[in-house]
């Protein structure tokens, strides 16, 4: 018998496998193809205090082994989320993690206040989206700002707060420590790496926004490195993500020090990706006699 249970800031998940915010909506679309009950948690697409339109199209570009997006956190707002998505998600036996986005500290707090008392398990503070001009990554790339926004938002949150970190920084460890000092209960990383693609025949960028966030298998080594460095530097549980497509990828993040892992862009390439990651982790554990998933966590010295 193997145990894949993990604990993120006091919340027990049946397995470490989650969905990366922004790749899975609130689960509705993929529920036609996979069993949501099998997931450790659903991390929903970013929720703001009011509806956001996002950026203009085109906002998707494929790159070698990955993709760029410049969606810009289009979402119908927290009121809609509470009314429509929480009841939907609660039909399933899985944990619900809400990704919280904003342009200002006040907007983040508005979302958190609106979610107080609501039936969700954890909050994930998005201070790392590269596709919004104000807020997002602007809050996540300077340590003193990270500490400030985390501590301000934390004051109002009645659920444990995960802070999602941007890889677009000189030293991820400084940012992680700042989030820890601000009162974060867990960290998730990485958000997308900023990137660009030019259509040389049209002599224009493919994305209307010119620059977007890169994700997919090609970013995985960067993400594994950052999870490893951060896990050595902070005491908080880490949710690792960046290019995870199968069970072996997930095990790699766990060995680097992640407690949970998220499957993101792989959902687009293969709607069954989350299920295959769960199966792949279990198969690895059985084959290599790992009885408890925590036995391999952070084993890389």
């Amino acid at each position, binding site marked *: 018998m193997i145990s894949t249970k993990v604990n993120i800031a006091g919340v027990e998940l049946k397995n470490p496998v989650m969905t990366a915010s*922004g790749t899975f909506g609130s689960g509705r*679309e993929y529920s*036609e193809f996979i069993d949501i009950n099998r997931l450790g948690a659903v991390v929903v697409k970013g929720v703001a205090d009011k509806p956001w339109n996002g950026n203009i*199209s085109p906002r998707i570009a*494929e790159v070698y082994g990955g993709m760029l*997006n410049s*969606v810009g956190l289009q979402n119908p707002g927290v009121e809609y989320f509470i009314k429509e998505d929480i009841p939907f998600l609660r039909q399933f036996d899985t944990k619900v993690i809400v990704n919280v986005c904003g342009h200002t500290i006040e907007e983040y707090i508005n979302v958190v206040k609106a979610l107080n008392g609501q039936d969700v398990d954890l909050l994930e503070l998005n201070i790392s989206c590269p596709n919004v001009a104000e807020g997002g990554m602007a809050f996540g790339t300077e340590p003193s700002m990270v500490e400030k926004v985390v501590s301000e938002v934390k004051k109002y949150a009645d659920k444990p707060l995960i802070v999602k970190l941007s890889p677009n920084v000189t030293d991820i460890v400084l940012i992680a420590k700042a989030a820890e000092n601000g009162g974060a209960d867990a960290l998730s990383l990485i958000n997308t790496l900023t990137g660009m693609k030019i259509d040389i025949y049209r002599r224009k960028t493919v994305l209307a926004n010119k620059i977007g966030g890169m994700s997919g298998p090609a970013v995985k080594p960067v993400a594994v490195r950052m999870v490893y460095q951060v896990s050595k530097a902070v005491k908080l549980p880490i949710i690792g993500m960046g290019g995870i*497509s199968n069970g072996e990828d997930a095990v790699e993040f766990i060995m680097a020090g992640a407690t949970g892992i998220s499957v993101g862009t792989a*959902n687009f390439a293969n*709607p069954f990706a989350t299920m295959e990651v769960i199966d792949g982790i279990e198969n690895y554990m059985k084959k290599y006699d790992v009885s408890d998933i925590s036995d391999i966590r952070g084993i890389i010295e």
Partner: protein
Amino acid sequence: MKKIEDAIILKNVSIVDNIFDMKIKAPAVAENASAGQFIEIYTGNGVNILPRPISICEIDKKEGNLRLVYQVVGKGTGIFSQKKEGSILRIIGPLGNGYNIKNADKSIFVGGGIGVPPLLETVKNVKGQKVVVLGFKNGTILKDDFEKAGAKVLIATDDGSVGFKGNVIELMKAENVTGDVIYSCGPKIMLKFLSKYAEEKGIECFVSMEERMACGIGACVGCAVKIKNGDSYINKKVCKDGPVFNSEEVLWND
């Protein structure tokens, strides 16, 4: 109901230049498909990770087959064009809303370039008088298929190599094409001017839009199209809310 299916290629041949005519056996997807819907095809490699949206040209529910007429525009479609008869393509579909077929005495179909194929299944499902107006840079595709489906076909080409020299809107003005409803698919600029033409003539007009997309099912929110909302707009998804919209809903000002 959307399905993911490993389709078998029954035919995959070049008809002109970079345009291929493919027939696949995909009974689970074909069963639920309707005119104006599309599928996404996975490339099956780890480099080109995103599936490619391809419109459905014809549906044979009895045989469980789909006809796809597609243009090689990049790496993904290049991979598909190399696939031989008997090989497997993983697909997801049917996707999108498709055309809502209206009861009308006279229907008009307007297609531009690789926007032409999805109109064929649509024409086959419409009763009454049918006029098909097609625009190409040069040459034509599917003209005989539309005629076989009982439509009168008008052709415009940019270089005048076939039919009228000019674009479809100029041709429609020259021929004073009128009717009760328009079904269209093609480049955004064509749809924009068609929308204006339809408004002037007082004809209800449905446009099938295209946008770069990833998942194809509404999760990634990549394929935004601006839809009027009072004095402002909201972004809807081409893959899930569309690809077909009433031309009056669309904000055309960009």
